[in-house]
């Protein structure tokens, strides 16, 4: 990134070679990353050059209200270099889960990075921040997570919100949200936040976001709710291998029926794939092994806003929150239709009673006219 730092620090490429990877391994990694980011083949050279010339960007990885599944996903991304170099190198500065230091040393390392790399480090946040009761629901080293967040975000070059907790609050912000768990973009004003939602997000997507920043020195293009377009512009539905069954109208009715065995579409058992933007169908998890739909489970829409409050996971029917757990739009619609029909019938009866005279007049008038017609 700059000459002073690169003298002190080896480049990414040098780190990779030191770890025992060959040039070929490195080139494979660069090609794979370029492909994941949706770049054309000419961009592989750019990725290679960036990793060869840039010294590592310090990364601070904060954990707040979360389950660490994002970290787990990240270290299982398909290329070992991701875990060995990106995570190993970047997380050394500060990561509650993976750093070697602890206690006073860890805090000192954090403080050191904050001061030394002010304006240069990437801040990764895993987890939401509880703001209720002055933030006492999540405290680290005697500070509330909100204080910690503001402290570390101040000098960050970019902020990445890992996972649904940091991006949209996830399960802890589901109604009634007792701790007021808040996604970080609502707490950081004036700093661009890259949202990488998912529970967890895909490891390759996480690596791709970081490599994009390293290669181009700026944050990737984001969609309207702040997710990198390269990974979140298509619906899970659009890349789903069960899509032909959807178009054919062949659906799993229950999880144990014949259709489920045949691998039909999971739409009717609540699949949120048609309304969820993510790259699951293309990248998959655990070195590209599988993703929920491939395992016979409907998509739960984890990369969408407020996904825990978006209705039931195993039904298409839309839940009317606050109107009883079993009520959905169609049930209320039918009730409303019944009430309307009854009101209409009541009105018709009342009309015939109260407007009897008028209706009778019209009828008599018509009959009078009819008499004048010569048959």
């Amino acid at each position: 990134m700059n000459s002073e730092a690169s003298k002190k620090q080896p480049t990414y490429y040098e780190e990779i070679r030191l770890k025992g990877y060959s040039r070929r391994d490195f080139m494979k990694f660069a090609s794979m990353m370029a492909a994941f980011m949706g770049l054309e083949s000419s961009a592989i050279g750019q990725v290679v050059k960036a990793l060869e010339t840039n010294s590592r960007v310090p990364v601070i990885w904060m954990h707040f209200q979360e389950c660490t599944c994002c970290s787990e996903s990240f270290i299982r991304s398909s290329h070992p270099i991701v875990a060995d170099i990106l995570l190993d190198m970047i997380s050394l500065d500060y990561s509650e889960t993976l750093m070697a230091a602890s206690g006073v040393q860890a805090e000192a390392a954090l403080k050191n990075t904050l001061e030394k790399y002010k304006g240069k480090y990437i801040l990764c946040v895993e987890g939401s921040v509880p703001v209720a009761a002055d933030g006492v629901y999540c405290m680290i080293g005697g500070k509330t997570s909100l204080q910690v967040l503001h402290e570390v975000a101040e000098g960050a070059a970019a902020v990445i919100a890992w996972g649904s907790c940091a991006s949209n609050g996830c399960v802890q912000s589901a109604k009634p949200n007792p701790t007021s768990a808040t996604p970080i973009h609502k707490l950081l004003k004036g700093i661009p936040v890259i949202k990488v939602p998912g529970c967890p997000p895909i490891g390759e997507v996480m690596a791709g976001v970081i490599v994009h920043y390293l290669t181009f020195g700026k944050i990737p293009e984001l969609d309207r709710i702040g997710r990198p377009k390269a990974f979140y512009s298509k619906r899970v539905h659009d890349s789903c291998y069960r899509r032909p069954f959807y178009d054919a109208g062949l659906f799993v009715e229950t999880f144990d029926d014949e259709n489920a065995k045949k691998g039909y579409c999971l739409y009717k058992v609540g699949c949120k794939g048609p309304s969820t933007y993510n790259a699951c169908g293309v990248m998959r998890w655990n070195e590209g092994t599988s993703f929920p739909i491939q395992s016979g489970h409907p998509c739960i829409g984890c990369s969408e806003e407020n996904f825990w409050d978006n209705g039931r996971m195993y039904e298409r029917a839309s839940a009317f929150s606050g109107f009883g757990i079993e009520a959905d739009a169609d049930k209320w619609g039918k009730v409303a239709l019944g009430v309307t029909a009854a009101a209409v019938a009541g009105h018709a009866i009342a009309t015939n009673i109260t407007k009897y005279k008028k209706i009778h007049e019209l009828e008599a008038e018509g009959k009078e006219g009819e008499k004048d017609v010569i048959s």
Partner: protein
Amino acid sequence: MATKYLHIPRLRRIYVWELPVRLYHWLNVLAIIVLVATGFYIANPLALMSQKEAANAFTMGWVRFLHFTAAYIFFFNFLFRIYWGFVGNKYANWKQFIPTSKRFFKEIWSVIRMDILFQKNRPGQREHLSIGHNALAGLTYFFVFLLFLVQCLTGFGLYAAMSDWWLPQLFAWVPAFFGGDIVMRQVHHWAMWLFILFTVIHVYLVFYHDYVEGRGEISSMGGGWKFIEEEFFEKEKPHTPNPHKP
């Protein structure tokens, strides 16, 4: 016998609904029927038992195709109706739908009093009888137009993800506004029920007005004519807001 109060008025034929308005109305009817029927199917498809390979069937695909085609017709028809609200006759004018005068509200109250509360006329008090829409119906249609708008926004908002054409892309901001596709398709589904409820009340009231007024309400959307009592013109001007006169 009824003859003691029988009074036979002369009727004047009034051209109320112009041909474009009638075409709009029936095209809208057709589009809404198709949209509701296919919409129910898309929300909860039938359990098909097919021996066909998926590659040889396209049931859901065809239903969705119909839904999207009808949606485009509905959308452009809606746009046309808004345009006609500025160039059509006084009964089609936008002032029929948006209250711009005190008289509009007075007539709404009068309609409620007569048709919903079934109050008897006090001596000398005239009935609310209007020629085009009555004021309450006009205001209701204004809210129905807002419902059309919500349905177009959410529908094309959902559709934007499947299309590269600039028109649906104009609606690509809608999902973020509603907080994602999942919530938006629920709004789209709930709003559909309002169409159904509106249809029930609308069809009933057309029969009601024909029945108690004897002016050819039902057939007016066929030929465009209503038959208005001659004395109605003699006594006072029509209560319909007239945009062409200040």
